[in-house]
């Protein structure tokens, strides 16, 4: 075999193929920058006393806004309401969603039609869903007011009364978002391998044992995904609550984003609004990191199984 006569290997610079990925992602990069700039601005504003109505008082107060929150009952109310909303909606949606997914587990014609039909509320804009429920709970002609009147609860104020307002918006949220959990868990249930269940069947294992020790653990990745997704969306809920009551009655439903919106547009208090949103962002960032880490692990598992 003739000896190769090239002394040194070819130079490393290879223009072809190196530039391409950057070129392709350039537009996406622009959007990224277009998001990061306002974000940075918000961080900066959150460290200022900044009110559009009092431009002369604008100045850096660093942690001032945040420290003020600690002694501000309105802030604690916001935190309390947001967490309550999150816990209630996610809790109810998970249980209801899991139940329905289990009911629809087998792939029959009826079940499949049902699952498609049940998907519909998810396709409706949450703001419009709130509107629909507002109509349904209207004291004059709302069908729900009429129905609860039949069981003796006259003059049920639904979203207008402080005691029942949270319940009402939670109800709307459950109506809109449970289908998401159903779709996810149903996909998970149908993707489960059949052998463990057939084996349990043959061995005569009781149903409850099968559910708690076989089904549930295998379904955990999907459940965790669904719960994290919903938690992140619920604590930031704006559309439903704003459309329903704009945060009222009083401050009964002042969750983070509604409060921040009103701070900005009603009270023109940019600094406080930004600081409130930063706190919300910190919470969601922590939660979403949890999720992304878990989701990446899930992806590895799925990809590794190829």
């Amino acid at each position: 075999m003739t000896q190769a006569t090239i002394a040194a290997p070819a130079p490393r610079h290879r223009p072809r193929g190196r530039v391409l990925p950057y070129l392709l992602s350039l537009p996406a990069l622009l959007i990224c920058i277009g998001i990061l700039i306002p974000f940075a601005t918000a961080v900066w504003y959150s460290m200022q006393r900044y009110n559009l109505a009092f431009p002369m008082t604008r100045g850096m107060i660093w942690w001032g806004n945040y420290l003020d929150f600690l002694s501000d009952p309105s802030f604690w109310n916001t935190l309390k309401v947001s967490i309550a909303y999150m816990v209630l909606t996610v809790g109810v949606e998970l249980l209801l969603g899991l139940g329905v997914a289990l009911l629809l587990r087998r792939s029959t014609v009826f079940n499949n039609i049902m699952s498609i039909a049940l998907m519909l509320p998810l396709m409706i804009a949450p703001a419009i869903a709130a509107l629909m429920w507002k109509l349904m709970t209207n004291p004059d002609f709302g069908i729900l007011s009429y129905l609860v009147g039949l069981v003796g609860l006259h003059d049920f104020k639904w979203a207008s009364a402080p005691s029942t307002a949270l319940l009402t918006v939670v109800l709307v949220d459950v109506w809109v978002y449970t289908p998401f959990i159903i779709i996810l868990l149903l996909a998970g249930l149908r993707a489960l391998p059949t052998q463990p269940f057939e084996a349990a069947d043959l061995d005569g294992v009781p149903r409850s044992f099968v559910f708690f020790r076989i089904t549930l653990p295998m379904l955990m990745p999907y459940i965790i995904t669904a719960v994290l997704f919903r938690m992140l969306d619920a604590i930031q809920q704006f559309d439903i609550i704003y459309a329903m009551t704009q945060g009222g009655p009083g401050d009964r439903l002042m969750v983070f984003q509604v409060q921040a919106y009103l701070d900005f547009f009603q009270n023109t208090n940019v600094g406080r609004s930004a600081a409130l949103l930063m706190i919300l962002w910190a919470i969601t960032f922590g939660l979403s990191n949890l999720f992304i880490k878990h989701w990446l692990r899930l992806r590895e598992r799925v990809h590794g199984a190829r």
Partner: protein
Amino acid sequence: MSDLILDRISKSYGKTQVLSEASIEVKAGETVVVCGPSGAGKTVLLRLVAGVVEPDTGDIRIAGRSVLNVGPERRDVGMAFQNFALYPHLTAFENIASPLRARGLEAGEIKKRVDEISKLLRIEHVLGHTPRELSNGQKQRTSLARSLVRGPGVLLLDDPLRNVDAKLRYEMRLELPRLLRNFGSAVLYVTQDYKEAMALADRIAVLRAGRIEQLAPASAIYDAPESIEVARLFGDPTINLYPIRPEAEGGAAVVRLFGQTWRLPRGREAAIDRDCMLGLRPEDVRIGGDGHPGSVAFELEAVTPLNVRGVLYLRGPAGEELLATVPERDIGQFGRGHRRIWIDLPAEKLHLFDRQSGARIAPAAA
């Protein structure tokens, strides 16, 4: 057509060094088969030549010209993939026509060439089908047709017979050399099956752990393997190997094995007093049933038919294991085993390897 030269190619992925300083030269019209265990880097080699992967160091030259900065579309290369890689949304005709359309040939010429090659590969009746509707054998031949239709200077075949049923595999092993000779391209073929390599290759490149251990015609690889690993890879059942230490005795090199002393043929003096491995192919074991001087008694433990031979499992006086093969027709005389038979070692068929490096200790030029 074109020559293909791979010049000291190295490639690593992360911490794994997939290829180290691999060099191969393929002449136009020649078929070089790259053979080796899985994970040895064979597929990466092909992709480097095709241009879909870049080497870390080294050069690739086609028709004398370096192609390192040339995209796959301008390298004049044809490739047939192991899993066919046909375009699922196009018909078989369009799949095969793709290289011609890329060259901008006009429709009439395209049709002529596609019909020509598909007749050659006997798939002209399925040209209108999509890949989904084809059998594996038809897919493989469509894939081959696509790689050949342009008459490329270099042809890369990535284990094309792997996913095809056994009968078709044997047929193609006979057909392929004839087909490839027609086209005259420099062919680089990859396989894990050493028998396929020996059937198809003008020369075989044995690739192990990223290095080319030997590049030679099949007979040389089989009869004079450059290392223990090459010897192990080629041969079924695997070559018998024993650690030994040749000594000097009466002016020649001798080996003590199985309680006997065997004379090594002339020219092996370099092996004296070195730690070696002795290799003996099962088919080279001489079986004689009557204990003539110079033979050893072995216990026959089992007899197994294998293809057109029988494999004898033998155990030596000190418990050594030995595999020997005999022609199929002779299996009968050995019964089921459990008897004593005599074997003899033909000196000229003994292979010697250095135990440390694994390299062959070649007989000194006489």
